[in-house]
């Protein structure tokens, strides 16, 4: 790789100088996921059962609905950060890596949008 040599710099090789942000996002979303996940886990374990009516009646309240929306955002973000590193590690061909990153972004944003919409729909009583 272009280890700081002039030709390497011209080819755009070497450090992208942006890796630390994904690394930090991974840690921060990890902490956030820990907090929200444990809240939801305890809430679900405290419920007498998780049948349709019980869960629905619980999820329409503002606090559980907020937690669920945050849970979706934080975990899709965390999964995206983590899988990005997995792609960097195992997909070496530039074109395939680009396609894999694009696919990951589509799935992560699409999945998060669906999770948020369904929760908001329930919370607003539809």
């Amino acid at each position, binding site marked *: 790789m272009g280890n700081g040599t002039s030709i390497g710099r011209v080819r755009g090789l070497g450090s992208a100088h942006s890796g630390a942000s994904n690394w930090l996002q991974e840690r921060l979303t990890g902490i956030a996921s820990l907090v929200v996940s444990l809240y939801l886990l305890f809430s679900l374990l405290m419920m007498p*059962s998780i049948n349709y009516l019980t*869960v629905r009646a619980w999820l329409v309240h503002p606090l559980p609905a907020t937690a669920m929306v945050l849970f979706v955002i934080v*975990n899709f973000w965390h999964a995206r950060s983590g899988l990005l590193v*997995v792609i960097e590690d195992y997909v070496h061909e530039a074109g395939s890596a680009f396609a894999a990153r694009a696919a990951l972004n589509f799935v992560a944003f699409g999945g998060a949008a669906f*999770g948020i919409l*369904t929760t908001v729909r*329930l919370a607003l009583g539809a």
Partner: protein
Amino acid sequence: MGIFAKMASANKVGARNRPLSPHLQIWRWGPAMLVSILHRVTGGGLSVVGLAVLLWWLGALASGPAAYATFSAVMGAWYGKVVLVGLTWAFFQHLCTGLRHFVLDMGAGYELESNARWSVLTIVISVVLTAGVWACILAR
């Protein structure tokens, strides 16, 4: 062929024949290596299977009682329970090894003995917590 074209083609050959670092089969397995791999595997599993189950659950809730009944039937069957118990364990394992990574990120926990001890403990804790959660679920 100009000098730069020669250098470029030599570079390509070099990239193809570049020696690869030794991989899984050559290292002696140890607790740190195991939980490092488990962290990645459980993270991948939670990302793909865990988030898919989450979206199915939320989608079924939003769609109505019939869709929720289908979801409950699949998750209540033996194969559904295997997936859910697996996800519970993967969650706690990833949580424990994630916390281990925070400690390592701070530059602590690299002494051989404590590193191995905490690696093994992440597995012990994740199995105990998984058993605890499912004991709560089955007891109610």
